[in-house]
């Protein structure tokens, strides 16, 4: 069943036509990767899906419910969380406060406490640093915090924007392992990545964006062996 259905999305930045008839689907339980070069429209797509940007036309449906024009702050309540590009943790808040903000839409104290324990067990480092200001964490730790914060909302689908950006290879490996773990726990994942090789290695399916248009899609393993993709994105 399609968890997320995006149909003919068109988005403009002023006069610039940033997304052109973008359509794709993410099924329940999948990891779907959205790959493409800088400026292809990957982040724009995620921002439109999670309500930070308004679409000119087209639709976004989450589990059959139309959320195209829903205010961004209400979309979290529908079961979608978004880990933004550049992590965007609240630097002046402690790690603990950041995680609490992730659970902003939830009110059951016991559930929040349980969720916090789950996040701490997935990211033990966050527990060690819970009283530290988020701005003092390393890039990799901030990425973990951004993920943990999104998971605090207990999403059914998680949008991840460039989780590997600016991280050491060691941390990239760790982050991708955690993404797979989160997915195994039943969270559907839409992953935007410039590191196409890494993304295709964990994804079930992928879409390729080029200057605001989806130009290719299919099984991740098949795309990994596609000659054009190898040349353009995998550097082979």
């Amino acid at each position, binding site marked *: 069943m399609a968890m997320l259905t995006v149909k003919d999305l068109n988005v403009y930045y002023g006069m610039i036509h940033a997304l052109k008839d973008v359509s794709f689907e993410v099924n329940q339980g999948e990891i779907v990767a959205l790959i493409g070069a800088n400026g292809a429209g990957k982040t724009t797509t995620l921002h439109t899906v*999670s*309500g930070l940007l308004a679409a000119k036309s087209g639709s976004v449906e989450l589990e059959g419910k139309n959320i195209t024009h829903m205010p*961004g702050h209400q979309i979290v309540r529908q079961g979608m*969380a978004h880990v*933004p590009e550049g992590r965007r943790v609240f*630097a*002046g808040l402690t790690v603990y*406060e950041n995680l*609490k903000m992730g659970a*902003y839409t939830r009110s059951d104290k016991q559930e929040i406490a349980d969720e916090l324990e789950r996040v701490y067990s997935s990211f033990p480092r966050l527990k060690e640093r819970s009283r530290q200001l988020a701005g003092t964490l390393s890039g990799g730790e901030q990425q973990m915090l951004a993920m943990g914060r999104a998971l605090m909302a207990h999403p059914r689908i998680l949008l991840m924007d460039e989780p590997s950006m600016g991280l050491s290879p060691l941390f990239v490996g760790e982050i991708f392992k955690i993404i797979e773990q989160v997915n195994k726990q039943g969270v559907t994942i839409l992953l935007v990545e410039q590191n196409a090789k890494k993304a295709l290695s964990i994804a079930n399916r992928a879409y390729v964006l080029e200057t605001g248009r989806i130009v290719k899609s299919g099984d991740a393993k098949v795309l990994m062996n596609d000659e054009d993709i190898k040349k353009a994105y995998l550097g082979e």
Partner: protein
Amino acid sequence: MTFLSYLISGISLGSVYAIIALGYTMVYGIAKMLNFAHGDVIMVGAYISFCATSYLGLSPLVSVVLAILVCTVLGIVIERLAYKPLRQAPALAVLITAIGVSYFLQNAALLIWKSDPKTFSAVAGGSIKLFGGELTISAVTIVTVVSCIVIMVGLTLFTGHTKMGTAMRAVSEDKGAAQLMGINVNTTISVTFAIGSGLAAIAGVLLCSAYPTLMPTTGSMPGIKAFTAAVFGGIGSIPGAMLGGILLGVIEIFSKAYISTQLSDAIVFAVLIVVLLVKPDGLLGKHVSEKV
């Protein structure tokens, strides 16, 4: 002993500036705008309290509560009508609008309450004498300083330990990311204006209790001084507004007492300039580098 009495007057005046400065600094922190109409909300608060006691015969305490309620609503309405439509507009447009709102409030007050000054009766009477009558502290001074401390502690607890307060800090750092957490940014901004304006009402009543002449322009000078205090302490910082306000009050009273009454404002602003030359972010301001 006169030194001590000047110091106490300075702290008292400074407490009023601090309460006003908190409104400036909180709104700036969350909405990233300078609400120059804030000073005039003080004046409205004072008039409401004045009318409640003089015309309706209500007790001073009830009149203060009424003033807080009216100003809170006024703050929310001003934000919704004047500033919210400009959320995406350039900062200059918002600034001009704020000045417009300021003139609107002053002229509305002129229409309603006329230009003749009203004599405000203090919300608290009496005084205590210390050191065998050498030092007199008025009840208004005590109420002012105590209010300021209570407000400071209350706001620190609110922003530091409540869900709404933490959300406000999150919004002040990154509106987009806050929205992704499910925080309604508009509600947060409204709450900030409500708190700031409620505090302005308290400041208005305290100010007019100490300096009892009430006119439609009563709020503008204290408003500008409190804005200065907020910048002085580091705009966006709550303890900074407090420190800036009190220092400004003390410097003002000392300059009046020991240097020159006429020059006191010039001295206050000269100190501000020196502080900003040495510490451009204010005394307790955080240095925030522009994101690119």
